């Protein structure tokens, strides 16, 4: 009891420290400095309609490459920690009901389609590779929930994942050899609001979407394999 009170006081101190810090930054007023540069220069420099995407992939593309690497490392870690070849353990399932099974069969292709749409229109709409990839992975999660005997072909998923990551690095290296720096814009900007605009953003986001989708599906497969292989609860 005493310990809980001490911890409560500790939490209050942390939260009030953040609140004290926030008093210095007023809410809802213009405090942009570098943001104004991005807002004005996005259309002439990148040709992308979505400013957030252009900041993430164009001005800070190297940062996003590191982010993809972090995601890859996490998926690798989960696979190393959880993947076990031992299939002879007892499997117990909670059977999915009829509605889930038929609904999955109807909805699954549309989930994949929507995911592909989201990661292909990342430079025009609020979306992008990570969001579309996560949506594709939820489709596979639904498949696992409905059909308990599902298991994805890991080798193909690893192939897609590697190709997606490779696309990013190859586009970056193209910029290095054809222009001045790594991840420089080598493709034409195109006209605004076209699908084929935004320079290197479209190929990179297709690669990132495929990579994130297959990676998260692998994580789902690892966690479900754990439930299947050890008999769950």
């Amino acid at each position, binding site marked *: 009891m005493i310990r*809980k009170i001490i*911890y*409560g006081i*500790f*939490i*209050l101190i*942390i*939260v009030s420290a*953040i*609140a004290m810090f*926030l008093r210095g*930054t007023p*809410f*809802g*007023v*213009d*405090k*942009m400095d*570098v*943001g*104004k540069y*991005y*807002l*004005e220069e*996005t*259309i002439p420099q990148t040709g992308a*309609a*979505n*400013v*957030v995407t252009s*900041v*993430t992939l164009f001005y*800070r593309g190297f*940062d*996003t490459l590191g*982010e993809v690497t*972090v*995601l890859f*490392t*996490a*998926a690798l*870690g*989960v696979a190393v*920690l*959880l993947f076990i070849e031992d299939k002879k353990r007892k499997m117990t399932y909670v059977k999915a009901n009829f509605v889930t099974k038929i609904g999955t069969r109807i909805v699954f292709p549309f989930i994949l389609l929507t995911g592909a749409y989201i990661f292909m229109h990342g430079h025009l*709409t*609020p979306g*992008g590779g*990570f969001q579309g990839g*996560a949506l594709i992975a939820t489709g596979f999660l639904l498949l696992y929930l409905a059909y308990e005997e599902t298991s994805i072909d890991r080798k193909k998923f690893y192939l897609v994942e590697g190709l997606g990551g490779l696309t990013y690095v190859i586009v970056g290296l193209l910029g290095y050899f054809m222009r001045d720096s790594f991840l420089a814009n080598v493709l034409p900007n195109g006209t*605004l*609001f076209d699908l084929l605009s935004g320079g290197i953003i479209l190929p990179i986001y297709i690669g990132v979407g495929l990579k994130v989708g297959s990676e998260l599906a692998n*994580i789902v497969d*690892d*966690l479900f394999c*754990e439930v299947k292989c*050890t008999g769950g609860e």
Partner: protein
Amino acid sequence: MIFYITALIIIGIGLYALIIKSNLIKKIIGLDLIETGINLLIVSIGYIDGKEAPIFTFNVRNAASMVDPVPQALTLTSIVIGASELALAAAFVVLLYRKYGTLNVKKIRSLKW
């Protein structure tokens, strides 16, 4: 202003779950709540009254009527890293459950302090 207060409340709840709860799953949920709160905080720092999301559409073409895009871009990075960290933490919890047969931190003897 309501965004700041909500973010602070979420961070507080997350810290409570992370520090006081002894179930490992609840601790992970607390970690994720803290992260969500901080993301909300960062995005709401970039908010400007009466301005729109930083996406050019057919109707909106002037850059002066948009909010700051930099905090949103950084939050995008932060969300992905949080998700991967959550997956790793869940994997560790599964391993701990397999080894000790319980999720209660106080019953995992070798972790007791």
